[in-house]
């Protein structure tokens, strides 16, 4: 790959670069469509049928149906776009954030109240002082 990616060693982080953007183009454009109330209604009425109108990969569709945001990220989703799925579901952003971390929403909220996730051990993949 010809793109310089100095950010690859950051743990638990997918930088939305041109490659991810290309991979996730239709997934993200699907998310964008949920900004219109009538599209949200159509999606809720039959999620699969709505998704099938977009030239997304099956993996992208399954990831959306499962509300698995980490799979969506890996498939090229960008969090600002993906957030529109959560909004359609009536979920808070904190609910969505927690779902990506393997924590319950309560645990995640408690971590944030206590000052958030520490940077120590989270700078570089495989770092020792975790």
């Amino acid at each position, binding site marked *: 790959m010809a793109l310089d990616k*100095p*950010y690859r060693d*950051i*743990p*638990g*982080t*997918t*930088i*939305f*670069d*041109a490659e991810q*953007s290309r991979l996730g*183009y239709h997934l*993200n*454009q699907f*998310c*964008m469509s*949920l*900004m*219109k*109330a009538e599209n*949200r209604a159509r999606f809720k009425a039959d999620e699969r049928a709505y998704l099938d109108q977009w030239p997304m990969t099956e993996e992208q569709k399954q990831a959306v149906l499962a509300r698995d*945001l*980490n799979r969506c*990220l890996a498939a090229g989703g*960008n*969090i*600002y*776009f993906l*957030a*529109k799925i959560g*909004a*359609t579901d009536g979920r*808070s*952003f*904190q609910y969505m*954030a*927690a779902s*990506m*971390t*393997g924590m319950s929403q309560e645990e*995640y909220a408690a*971590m*944030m*109240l206590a*000052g*958030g*996730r*520490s*940077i120590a051990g*989270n*700078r*570089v993949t495989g770092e020792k002082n975790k």
Partner: protein
Amino acid sequence: MSTQHAKISASVYTSHVPAIGAALDLGKSQEPYWQPVFAGYEASKTWMKENTPDVIFLVYNDHATAFSLEMIPTFAIGCAERFQPADEGWGPRPVPVVQGHPELAAHIAQSVIQQDFDLTIVNKMDVDHGLTVPLSLMCGQPQAWPCPVIPFAVNVVQYPAPSGHRCFELGKAIRRAIESYDTPLNVQIWGTGGMSHQLQGARAGLINPEFDNAFLDQLISDPQNLAKMPHIDYVREAGSEGIELVMWLIARGAMDDVAGGKAPRVAERFYHVPASNTAVGHLILENQP
């Protein structure tokens, strides 16, 4: 001579967390969770009343609202008469329509393009929480915003965002543009977004107060050096969405001291964790006569 021209009187920096807007809109600002956040802006609201400018040049980023992946402008200047608060998925925020300043915006666009910044001119655009939450924090809940606003959107969604250096240089160019406008307007420039936060992946919830406070210190005292910080440092230290902080350098680059004038006065400084997933930071810097 200079009184015949527009002038930047102050710069304002603030996070633009969407949950802050929601808390205000839903009447939750006095709840224990939110009270410290809004308390941190009380003095700034008073300052804003006492220092209402004629125009705000408001640097922010769009969050997949006005711009989809079809077109991603690095820098976009809003030249329209007005900008509607966007429906980000929950209906538009119940805040006033944003009145633009097409004449000053067009002047800045022309001047800055002629200074070799490759702007995208936007004549129709809805504005999201990136622009409206800072207005709410600084102005409260008025019937109308106190003055016209020129929206200036920066791409921080798809990598690469413009460098800190580029943003700082752009601030200088915007200052020259504003000071060449032949009407004596009092202009504020705002930089919004940040501070440390990460909204995605297993590292979501990252907060780095040491980084944030060092950023605030250096933004005040040594922005020229701060502007040299590479993109990777923002992402690694302040989270994938911490990159929004480069936008603060646009506002900072437009201040008097960068062009050889006096150092600004720190009128307000505030830092708080958390607001939803994000560290909240806020500064007001006033140019000195």
